[in-house]
């Protein structure tokens, strides 16, 4: 049985060429083409490829972020990055011993990279991301169907309880295994801390409510539930909203 490969590149011509080259190797089989990171994650869930050839520069979600989401899968695929010219990334790849190919890809280099392809662990990914843009465009959560991606700009608030964080977005909610502190560090000024257990998306703030017993709540666009503001954060939140 041949090894299944998923090809991810935003350029049709680049995908065609890689597909043609992979097809020439007897022991590999192309199972899908994706044009950006989001499609890549979806197709990876669907086809469960063993290797993903992943372009770095793509619109929507880039290759580095897609790799982070792929690493969340139960059976994460091996990843080989492809790049035309990315000096910083290449240094980081070498440092982390992560497989990569330079475009235009040579047949022999492709064959070698496929043979040596391996999974990338989270430590390696973190090191790669720290080098460039640490901020993700999407939050991913493992669900029964595999993996769900929520665009960060669609998130209304993050709320922590006990062990997990609930991500409330425009069409529902998901549960992720991260801490509010990490999220606050990553998304910084896009979210506002209103409570020890809650971060709200600044762009979706609609207004402030005061309930009968003197508690303040913050309302967010398109969601029914309001988020409690703790006494400690009231003054700061009001000041912030005024400044908007």
């Amino acid at each position, binding site marked *: 049985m041949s090894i299944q490969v998923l090809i991810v590149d*935003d*350029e*049709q*011509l*680049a995908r*065609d*060429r890689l597909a*043609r080259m992979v097809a020439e190797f007897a022991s590999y089989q192309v199972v899908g083409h994706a*044009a*950006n990171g989001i499609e890549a994650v979806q197709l990876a869930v669907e086809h469960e490829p063993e290797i993903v050839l992943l372009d770095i*520069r793509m*619109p*929507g979600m880039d290759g580095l972020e897609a790799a982070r989401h792929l690493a969340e899968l139960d059976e994460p695929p091996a990843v080989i990055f492809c790049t*035309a*010219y990315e000096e910083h990334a290449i240094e980081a790849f070498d440092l982390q011993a992560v497989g990569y190919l*330079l*475009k*235009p*890809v040579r047949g022999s280099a492709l064959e070698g990279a496929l043979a040596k392809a391996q999974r990338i662990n989270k430590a390696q990914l973190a090191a790669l991301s720290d080098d460039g*843009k640490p901020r993700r*465009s999407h939050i991913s959560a493992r669900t029964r169907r595999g993996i769900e991606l929520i*665009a*960060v*700009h669609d998130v209304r608030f993050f709320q922590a309880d006990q062990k997990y964080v609930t991500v409330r977005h425009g069409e529902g909610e998901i549960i992720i295994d991260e801490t509010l502190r990490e999220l606050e560090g990553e998304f910084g000024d896009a979210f506002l801390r209103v409570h020890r257990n809650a971060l709200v998306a600044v762009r979706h703030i609609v207004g402030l409510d005061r309930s009968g017993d003197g508690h303040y709540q913050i309302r967010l666009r398109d969601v029914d539930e309001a988020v409690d503001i703790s006494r400690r954060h009231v003054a700061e939140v009001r000041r912030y909203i005024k400044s908007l």
Partner: protein
Amino acid sequence: MVPDLCNVASISLLVLFGELLVLVMLFAGGPLTWMRLALMSLFVQWVAITSAGVLCWSRRWLAGFGVVAGAVLGFAEVMVVTFLVGMAADRLMVWGEYPVDWTAILGQMVISGIITALALRYFYVQQQLRQQEQAELHSRIQALQSRIRPHFLFNSMNIIASLIGSDPKTAESVVEDLSELFRASLNDAGNQVQLQDELDLCERYVRIEALRLGDRLQLDWQVEAVPPGVKIPLLTLQPLLENAIYHGIQPRPEGGTITVKVWFKDEHVHVEIVNPLPPETGPGPSEGNKMALNNIRSRLLVLYGAQAGLTTDVRNGHYVTVLRFPVGGEHAQDAG
């Protein structure tokens, strides 16, 4: 290195300088009379204007001798003029059989020699300074010369590699277009080309990018008739278009349309490039964009001074870049 004294401005300056010299000599000693002023003026102007005439007339001939020999010969010419004028004045001033006043003639030649040597030195330093300025200007333009982005090179190579097997004809045309772009980027910096040539170059560039981006890239060219012969510094528009594609189209999964408008108004050519804004989720505005814009701005400043401008603006969710430059020639390059 012989100074150019063949124009009215130089002669006027020479006359003025001569009068100043007369005043210096007048006040340096001897009786202060109008007669002395008049005679000294007559003599100095006579020497100065005749010398200027001789230098102007022999300028081409002197230029063939190189810097030092040319200066020595020029100096000798002035000395001969001074001697002849001195002799003539000596003979005219006195009627009768008085002997020539050799002391006076020697004095005139010493003064004339010192002033001429100072003037030659001044012209030499000034010329050196100007040459240095020219060299600096040239190297500044060279440094600001737009370079093809490495990304574009490797992406294009990838396109060619992809097409060679499946569509050799298109691969061939990509190689041709790419060669033209490279020839342009290797061209002497600061070169001015016909506006139409630059627009052709832009089209070649867009053809390559269109192969890469497919349907995501749409272009709307609205080029009005511009007077023939309008020139533009080479690779001025192409980097703007490249910016529009890299920042406005590439980060958008759905792509978009870039509008290029060219029109002519008030002796200025206006070029407007409109592209959609990158999505908010993507990376922030890149430093590369600003660098490319500043680069073009500096080049325009060197070539046109304040008459040209490059402005950027966000209008109705679009990024608008407007380039404006005068039709009539360059600004700084004429100085040499």
